[in-house]
């Protein structure tokens, strides 16, 4: 009887631990990390989860958020306060990105995102990250959108703005 009580108690404690919000969030975040097979070379420490960005938006960090992909998709829906700077897969887009950040201090927190395609197929996020890194910016974070902006931001109920 005592053994049975111990088994039930230990199982209940384990269950409670797993159900804790922090634990669940950690599980979600680790699960949402890209697989080593993705072809981007952005260090995992520079990746930013959507939920983390959402917390930033409500906090005091005040990041500069740049959309580095499609203008049409940006016009459909984008993160409130974010700016469109051009598709970084093109030389014109990279030029536009350089111009936008030219007057910023190198420690400015910059969040870049695209979400045009699944992460491993995105042609824009890596060139944008590498460009900012090459320019000497020390706080560049790439928003990790596993599938696309629709699935990983809009469909999660996070706020969006529309228009160009």
């Amino acid at each position, binding site marked *: 009887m005592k053994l049975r009580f111990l088994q039930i108690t230990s199982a209940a404690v384990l269950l409670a631990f797993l159900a804790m919000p922090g634990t669940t969030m950690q599980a979600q975040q680790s699960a949402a990390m890209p697989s080593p097979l993705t072809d981007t070379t952005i260090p995992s420490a520079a990746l930013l989860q959507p939920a983390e960005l959402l917390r930033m938006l409500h906090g005091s960090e005040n990041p500069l958020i740049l959309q580095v992909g499609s203008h049409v998709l940006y016009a459909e829906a984008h993160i409130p306060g974010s700016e469109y700077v051009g598709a970084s897969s093109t030389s014109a887009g990279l030029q536009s990105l350089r111009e936008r950040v030219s007057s910023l201090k190198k420690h400015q927190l910059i969040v870049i995102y695209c979400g045009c395609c699944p992460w491993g*197929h995105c042609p824009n996020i890596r060139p944008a990250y590498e460009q900012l890194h090459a320019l000497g910016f020390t706080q560049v974070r790439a928003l990790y959108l596993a599938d696309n902006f629709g699935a990983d931001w809009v469909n999660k109920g996070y706020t969006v703005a529309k228009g160009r």
Partner: protein
Amino acid sequence: MPKNAQIKVPRLRLLLPFLLVPIVLFAENSPLAAQTVPSRARVARAAPNFSRVDLRHKKIELTSYRGKVVLLNFWATWCGPCLTEMPTFTEWQNKYSSEKFQVIGISMDDAAPDVIAMANKLKLNYPVLIGDEHLGIAYGGVLGLPVTFLIDRHGKIRERYQGASDLTDIKREIEAFSTPDSQVKLWYLVDVLIASYPGS
């Protein structure tokens, strides 16, 4: 049989829910669940009409394709998975009678010259239009490419495919939607029954 052995099974049963719950919790958040996978959704609503000029300056109006199964493909020149599947759409346009089937491409690119160059390179044999945010919003939000809709002969969207899709699956659906109305009604009935089944 020793007494302890007899009570082992009930004890395991007792622990089963506690063992299963964490498994379920982790299954939802498992790395597999987080992988990027194409999605397919059954839809049953009228396809929003549009009237635009294609790359060859021909007026394209969706309602004029009533009576045909239409594959409406949202794509862009910078979208790798899009470019992979488009040659198959060209092949299908050749294979199926143009009286029964029509592919329409909608580019979500920002610049038309890139689209024209790519359409020529891929030798697309179907109309391609330049899309915009209004068209994307009308179709429920095209926020990630490719997105493909299958529209039946009555102008109703039947399927929405997001991401690099299983082309065999799309092909099967095209053939099913191209069958005579009596058979379509039968399949539609099956669809409705499946959709109304609890948990589906």
